[in-house]
């Protein structure tokens, strides 16, 4: 199983901080597409992804137990 974390406007769109799904074997890009459709996630072309707290590209394959996070454009500082 995989935890998928949402932040900022994505958290508002999904209505939850995290979901648990089985995403192992999928690429980041595939998961992104699937969840974008399911939750009508806005502006996903600007959203980065992290696997286990490190930025990951769309073609990276998700392993069982990986923690996935969708990272909207950051605005700290």
């Amino acid at each position, binding site marked *: 199983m995989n935890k998928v974390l949402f932040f900022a*406007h994505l958290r508002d769109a999904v209505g939850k901080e995290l979901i648990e799904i089985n995403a192992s074997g999928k690429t980041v890009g595939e998961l*992104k597409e699937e969840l974008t459709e399911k939750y009508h996630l806005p502006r996903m*072309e*600007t959203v980065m992804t992290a696997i286990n707290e490190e930025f990951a590209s769309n073609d990276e394959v998700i392993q069982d137990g990986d923690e996935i996070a969708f990272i909207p454009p950051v605005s700290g500082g």
Partner: protein
Amino acid sequence: MKFFEITKEPINIQEVIDKVVQREAGAITTFIGTVRELTHGKRTLFLIYEAYESMAVKKLEQIGREIEERWQGSKVAITHRVGRLDITDVAVVIAVSTPHRADAYEANRYAIERIKEIVPIWKKEHWEDGEEWIGNQLETKAYPSGKPEEDDLHE
């Protein structure tokens, strides 16, 4: 001692500075990021900062390592606050010490610019007539590969 922190409490500025004190240093620069009331004429009432805390700490540590590699003899401490912040509250404090002053200024500037690129922290602005998560407000930045490119990281 934790050199890189996310906190829900008001930041003690002196404590951040004290972390980078070293006998080899000839300068310490401190950057204090505060909550601004007016942005392009629009009045902000307050902000909510949210972080992916565990990753944010790692990314702050990464920035610290980058600085210590680029500016020899430098020492860095960064604390970023999350939660509700009012106008004039301190959101972030960056302290950098180096043997010579020019490096301390440069390295400190580098730290705040990098925070705005790679540290997963978001702010939600609350106005009289609404609220919005602030990212890249113009939405001019896209990440087609799903992560920042080399160029994004060093511009």
